[in-house]
């Protein structure tokens, strides 16, 4: 239970001693981080109410800049760690910050099963369409035929749609936006934080240093403009042909279902187990 009555400022979360942050100029991660803190403020969530779990990557460095309960783990494993934290300590808001590599490539199996389990954790995925931290190699979300430091002649693999995957697997809240649409980031994180069950917010983020530079989008404003042009609101999808949707980022809320989260189901299992024990 977060203490909603308490007044909190987003600034309470900022670890000033570590600022300015080390992300490149034009990187979208500062925008996503600030949006998350605004969402905390709006939700009345204080630093001690939240556990931020980070994986490895440029986005995984976010905990360096935070005052909160923070847990920085191995590459790809933020979700199962977050799962353990939430089950053991259900009164905490647990939010896992992961890149596209972290969440969906090396950690793809955990994404599927966390979604299916509908564990009460927020997954905030910053998708910069490549591996920023290791120098811009392709990931499972790199658009088909894009150039990266390991796909010089074009990436032969089609991109994975993280939101559709998570929704299909059973996540009860799923939304996507981009760093261009900054106000929506805060809104979706806010919705995710008050949701019961697994909630995934994917934010497409500019990486001018690598993905941008290799794909003729090396200037930050250029990349932002590209994100805007490539985005299509989910409401418009039904009017468009498959051809028109190719390489587009569909934005909006994919799923927002009330129902049974893992924790609510598990409480039922525990009471069944206790009843059986008593009747023994």
């Amino acid at each position: 239970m977060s203490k909603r009555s308490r007044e909190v400022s987003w600034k309470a979360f900022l670890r000033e001693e570590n600022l300015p942050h080390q992300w490149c100029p034009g990187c979208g991660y500062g925008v996503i981080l600030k949006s998350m803190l605004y969402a905390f403020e709006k939700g009345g969530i204080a630093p001690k109410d939240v556990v931020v779990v980070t994986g490895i990557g440029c986005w995984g460095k976010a905990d360096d800049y935070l005052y909160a309960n923070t847990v920085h783990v191995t590459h790809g494993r933020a979700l199962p760690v977050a799962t353990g934290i939430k089950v053991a300590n259900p009164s905490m808001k647990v939010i896992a910050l992961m890149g596209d590599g972290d969440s969906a490539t090396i950690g793809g199996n955990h994404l599927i099963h966390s979604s299916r389990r509908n564990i009460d954790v927020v997954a905030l995925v910053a998708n910069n369409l490549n591996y920023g931290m290791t120098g811009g190699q392709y990931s499972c979300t790199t658009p088909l035929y894009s150039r990266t430091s390991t796909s010089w002649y074009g990436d032969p693999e089609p991109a994975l749609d993280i939101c559709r995957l998570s929704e299909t697997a059973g996540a009860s809240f799923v939304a996507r936006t981009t760093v261009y649409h900054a106000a929506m980031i805060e809104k979706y994180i806010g919705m995710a934080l008050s949701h019961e069950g697994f909630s995934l917010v994917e934010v497409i983020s500019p990486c001018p240093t690598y993905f941008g530079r290799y794909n003729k989008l090396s200037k930050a404003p250029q990349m932002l403009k590209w994100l805007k042009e490539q985005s299509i609101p989910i409401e418009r999808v039904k009017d468009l042909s498959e051809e028109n949707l190719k390489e587009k980022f569909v934005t909006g809320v994919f799923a927002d279902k009330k129902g049974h989260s893992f924790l609510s189901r598990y409480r039922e299992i525990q009471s069944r187990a206790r009843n059986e024990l008593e009747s023994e």
Partner: protein
Amino acid sequence: MKKKVRFMLGNEAIVEGALLAGATFFAGYPITPSSEVAERASRKLPQIGGCYLQMEDEIASIAAIIGASIGGAKAFTATSGPGFSLMQENIGLAIMAEVPCVIVNVQRSGPSTGLATRPAQADIMQARWGRHGDHSVIALSPATVQECFDLMVQAFNMAEKYRCPVLFMADETVGHLRENCVLRSRDEVEIVNRKRPPEGLEEYFPYKADDDLVPPMVTPGSDYLTRFHSSTHNEKGLPTSSPQEARKLIKRLYDKIEKNKDDIIMYREFDVTKCEYLVICFGGAVRAARQAAIEAREEGLSVGVLQLQTVWPFPAEYISEVSKGKRGIIVPEMNMGQIIGEVRKAVPDKIPVLGANRYDGEPLTPKEIIQVLGEVVSL
């Protein structure tokens, strides 16, 4: 009060020991010959308001118990060779981030999927060195069903006391053994809980250790903010690339175990001081060794058995002392010879050290140990 004695599997006693130690969380992925641990945990934990989570793989299993422990629970997992291999990276995480947890490995024959239902003790070096980077580690090994229970309590106590993962290196012979087990009660055993920081600190440093080299631990939601970090970090839990801070951390993580060897090392002695020939062993091999010693004594040989309940850190100094003046040492293992290397390093040069080894998926027999004993005697 009447003692509660139950006839049960080693794997079941492991769960009972964990419950007595205060475990409320298990995450795992089933694998022979450890699955009975998961099965019993799944029955018992929901009854006490705890949680059994069946994860998507062993990487997720160890990650989840690390998370649960950070969340404030005492947590464990159980696996065998293939799963133990998958867990290694995150065992390193538990070491680096200093997260108490217990990892049970009911060893089976390998490599790879090997002989899934057959015993081995061939992961004992992997237990020591399976993950990358400099570190020390605690590994215990039970030889009886009673020890599955009792040492499991010790495993949790050490994990909590030293804020580290503890590897519980059982093997198929012990995990699938049925014996009487005294289920001790809460007031019969000492239960250790992780140290908390004092109240009212101006600032809590998550990785600032006390004199015992162990930093107090905080549960999210209490008065201080927690920080856990997998990368090389300073006392604040912030990543650092300073050589001084790196050296300080690596050394402390190593020393908090190595400098407390006296507390961590447990062994059982059977005629160790007065014997002429000494058998040094651990886990399932102990049973054959003790029988071999009895039979050899009937033949007029003076044979003692030293059982290592703690395998890591290795009791090198003690073995070096106790082996002085012995006419020969035998190290039976269900592997091609792993711990024998440590024994050789510890034992004075002139004393012969011979292995009795099986690596065909069959348990060691007293006969094989007696045979090697014969070789040592005739040297």
